[in-house]
């Protein structure tokens, strides 16, 4: 019998559940990235996992994003939809995203530098967002990106809104 692999999407996702024997479901900081992105503004960088300064962000891709840059490598996985990324090699990367600053920063106006090219992502594809490059996303239809980066000025933390509580449906306590 053929196996069917189940991926999630904005339109079709089902969060799992938690049976708590001792402690609280809050200890597991349990969310679903598609449910998060379904309620997000376009390109809002909602933190869904945080390990000290490091974060994973769920991002709703919709329309064209502002330009972003970062002093270190970041990685993005397309979890739903088609997304194109444009890249510009910054003439002065340290002026836009200083080396001592971590996380994604906004580029004001158009990035100054040479066009590096584009990457077209479909579901399951991962791209490197290299340090020192400006980048922006375009998605004709809403999609979801998962970004591996460091907590920065654009990161949004709203844990109480996105995570399972002891009262949440699906929590068996």
């Amino acid at each position, binding site marked *: 019998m053929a*196996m069917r*692999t*189940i*991926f*999630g999407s904005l339109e079709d*996702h*089902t*969060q*799992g*559940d*938690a*049976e*708590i*024997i*001792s*402690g609280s*479901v809050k*200890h*597991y*900081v*349990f*969310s*679903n*990235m598609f*449910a998060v992105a379904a309620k997000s503004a376009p390109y809002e960088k909602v933190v*869904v*996992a*945080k*390990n*000290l300064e*490091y974060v*994973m962000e769920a991002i709703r891709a919709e329309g064209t994003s502002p330009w972003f840059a970062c002093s*270190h*490598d*970041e*990685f993005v*996985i397309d*979890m739903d939809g088609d997304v194109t990324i444009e*890249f510009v*090699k910054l003439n002065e990367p340290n002026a836009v995203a200083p080396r001592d600053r971590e996380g994604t920063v906004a580029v004001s106006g158009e990035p100054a530098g040479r*066009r*590096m*090219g*584009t*990457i*077209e*992502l*479909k*579901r*399951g*594809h*991962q*791209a*490197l967002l*290299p340090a020192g490059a400006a980048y922006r996303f375009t998605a004709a239809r809403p999609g979801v990106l*998962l970004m*591996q980066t*460091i907590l920065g000025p654009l990161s949004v933390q709203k*844990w109480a809104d996105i*995570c399972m509580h002891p009262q949440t449906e699906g929590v068996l306590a």
Partner: protein
Amino acid sequence: MALAMDLVRSSEPDPINGYRSFELGEFKLTRDAYFATVDWPAKGQRHIHKLPIDYFLRAMMRDVAWGFFYGWVNFDHIFGTKNLYGTVEMYAGRYNEAYHLAGLSYVETFDEPVIMATFKAILADWVNAGFDPFAAPEETSTSVFGPKNGNNFEAIERTRLNTQRMPGVAGDSPLRDEAAYPINRHFLDVPQDDPVVRAEPGFEDQLSAFNLFKYLSRSDVTWNPSVTGVCKASLACPTTEEFILPVFHGNDRVEWFIQLSDHIVWDVQDKETGRPRAMITMRAGDVAAMPADIRHQGYSPKRSMLYVWENATPGLPDRYESGELPVYPVEF
């Protein structure tokens, strides 16, 4: 390594079943047709514990492949290892409340090369031809049982990729060769298209993307993370899972799971005592933390894609153990 190999203490093959037995400090490890037996001294006598041999070898294979991993690798509720990074503790009953309170637990610390060489020698001797401890049970042979019957060095000596940034980036670890890594039988419906990279002249080596789901669909191992994204000490370690994680992993730091496809049920227990804490079912798109004070074992009825996310910052175990860092990653 030659020196460490010389420190492996093993017997001659058993005249009946053909397997060697091994000693590490005061521990003795033997196998027969169906079981691995661990014995250790406590309260003036030897105590024994038995594990099914297939289960034991799957656990030991992970311990070796992961280089003793982060923190605790509990083979089961009695036996396991704790990574002290340079040295490794081996224990029996130490993290089982009943054994420990009864004074029957035993712990001994070994230099990492010595315990690693011993574990590799055990795998080399105890894994029979046809049995792959990395494979799901349905994919491999039951030749693990019975008397000694050849070996399978190829399965136990897979080389580990050392990724600096991301697989497929210029000068970094390669993507999986399509001929050598066929699509797994559970992932035949996973699209195999590649991202379209249009680099301007001169930037060909700087733009990089790959199909992560395709990459995972061709993994020939289960419960064996490999690095696909390095952001300073933040390591993306996705893996494909089927059947049961052959160990209870005890965290010496917080780690996170992001379920990419299908579902896994996690049995979460207290790290110190083994008391049950939670059963967490994670479905596609779910994100959950595994706190620094728990151990967990996963069950995956269909091969699934799990994105394990680790923080490799040096010195974290001490900072959690001292209470400097909270065991739960987020307060809300």
